[in-house]
């Protein structure tokens, strides 16, 4: 019974969010008519059109060039898969960097810890665009100096994976590093840690066996912010690096609202499922039900 209810809330949640995405797009098309009542009718028409386009998804075509039209699904599937691979890769990499970083930093002496935190704070204020700019410049600079092309910074027709994944993951991993480190420091003062240390367990053992598990909960509950941050990074990277990902595709099709709506909905779907799954894991770990949404 409870499971049914859960599935229903998840479904309702999902539908509402997708409806909102459609409403935003319809509003974006109609808001320039603002003072006149025409706006409402245009909005409603657009909204209906977007809604029905979801049911006739197979018939939608996109114009790739002036003379060439192609069905949406088959053209979108490739950039979609590419973007997802990069996002998942980046997520895994940033998770790895952040947790290892936090672990190493936690074992450092205190003045060094403070320094690392300061550096992380400063790095966080570098906008992702500028970071990606400078990576590009750095790769070119290395190439000029040493004739060594680490990775091709501008994607041609073939898809590159390594550089985008690394680049997209660095700024989010700084964010995640700070969160993890904060979680560690909060856990450190709890009585069970003191007790374990007093019992004679080593610092590493306490850190891995006990604190890490508890800190992981905090990290997991912040994972959706990480996704959002990463999406914005990916958008910029795809644009600047000429990558053939989903955002680039949507950017080119910005004037066809149906395509944008379907693309965003498709991007949203896997992440929402992961979000719900993550929340279930946390609920299982802590025993506290926090609701699905």
């Amino acid at each position, binding site marked *: 019974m409870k499971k049914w209810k859960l599935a229903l809330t998840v479904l309702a949640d999902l539908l509402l969010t997708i409806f*909102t995405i459609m409403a*935003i797009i319809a509003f974006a098309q109609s808001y320039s008519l603002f003072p006149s009542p025409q706006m409402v009718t245009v909005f409603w028409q657009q909204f209906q059109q977007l809604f029905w386009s979801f049911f006739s998804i197979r018939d939608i075509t996109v114009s790739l060039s002036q003379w060439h039209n192609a069905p949406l699904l088959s053209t979108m599937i490739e950039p979609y898969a590419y973007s997802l691979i990069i996002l998942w890769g980046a997520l895994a990499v940033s998770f790895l960097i952040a947790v290892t970083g936090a672990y190493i930093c936690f074992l450092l002496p205190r003045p060094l810890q403070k320094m690392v935190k300061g550096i992380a*704070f400063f790095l966080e204020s570098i906008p992702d665009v*500028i970071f990606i700019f400078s990576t*590009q410049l750095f790769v070119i600079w290395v190439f000029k100096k040493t004739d060594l092309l680490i990775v091709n910074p501008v994607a041609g027709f073939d898809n590159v994976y390594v550089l985008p994944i690394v680049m997209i993951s660095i700024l989010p991993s700084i964010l995640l590093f700070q969160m993890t480190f904060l979680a560690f420091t909060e856990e450190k003062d709890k009585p069970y840690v003191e007790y374990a240390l007093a019992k004679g367990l080593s610092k590493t053992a306490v850190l891995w066996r006990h604190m890490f598990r508890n800190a992981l909960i905090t990290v997991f509950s912040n994972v959706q912010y990480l996704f959002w941050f990463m999406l914005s990074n990916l958008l910029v990277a795809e644009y600047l690096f000429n990558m053939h990902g989903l955002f680039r595709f949507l950017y080119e099709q910005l004037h066809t609202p149906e395509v944008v709506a379907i693309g965003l909905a498709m991007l949203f779907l896997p992440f929402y499922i992961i979000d719900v799954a993550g929340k279930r894991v946390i609920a299982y770990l802590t025993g506290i039900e926090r609701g699905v949404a």
Partner: protein
Amino acid sequence: MRAFRNVYFTTGFIIAAGLLLASFLYSYWLKDIIPQPPEWIYNEAGRLVDVPPYPPSWVHPFGVDRQGEDVFWKVIDGAKYTIFTALAVSLLRLAFGTVGGIMYAFYLQKFRFIAESIVRAFRFVPAIFLTMLFFAFIPLEEQGAGMGVLIKQLLVLAVVALPPLMLVIGNDIAVFLQNEFVVSSRLMGADNVWLIRKHVLPYMRPRLFLLFTQQTVQSLLLLVHLGAFQILLGGVKVIYDSDGLGPPEKVAFSLSNEWSGLIGLSYREMMLDQWIVVGPCVAFIVAIFAFKLMGKGLEQVIAGKGKRKQRKKQWSSSGKPASFPPQQGDFEFVLYR
């Protein structure tokens, strides 16, 4: 004002205020004093060695751009537009967000489920993508440039981040309203207006300042993105530039030296003369860093409010040696209310 005792806040404030001050000084006074960079550079033998753009040097720390203007002073000049745009956008967001948050906390708690899924859509789509979507369907060039377009654009920039902010403020207030003193105040007959005036607003004031700095950082980030996607605030001026070879080339200029415009318009310089783009990028980093510092300072002030008082009390009680038997001077007489 207590915030100024915090080192972080004061440092951030000084950096931001210094940028603004330098910017105003430049446009009213320094502009006429500082010499323009030379149009040609000759070496000792009197041979022409360089024409703009010049690379960074001690005289021109950020270099000189293709039009022969010093990038450093361009950036300083643009500081006021950029920072004020960010401040205006975050002020708009905060004003609407507070009103919406209060409405949500007081009247719309039943629709929490719906509100959260709506907000999720806004959070999920990157703000810059939403902005592009909104700008894509209005032909800005047709409407010309000027204040009207600028105000419309600022409103769009404010609106794209509004729903999440409303939810954050609303949830904060909703939690606050469950405090016992609020509940008892309500039981004694206080209406919502009274609660808002006497409880919610005093509680929210420092938090609103914190949100304000955070939103300013967000708007600055959005401005960088706008620059990268070559969307200009306030329209563009297009001139036809000819170098004598081939047909005249269309060159777009930002109407002001606003930083995102500086980045966006000279993006293609990145592969040629990087310093033209690097200047505004550095400026953005400095500005964002300053506002982040202010935010961190405010966070500490809000969190450490009670702590400092306690510490003071402890210090004063342990600082004075107690005498035995106690003298009258050991006691402090307070008026009991």
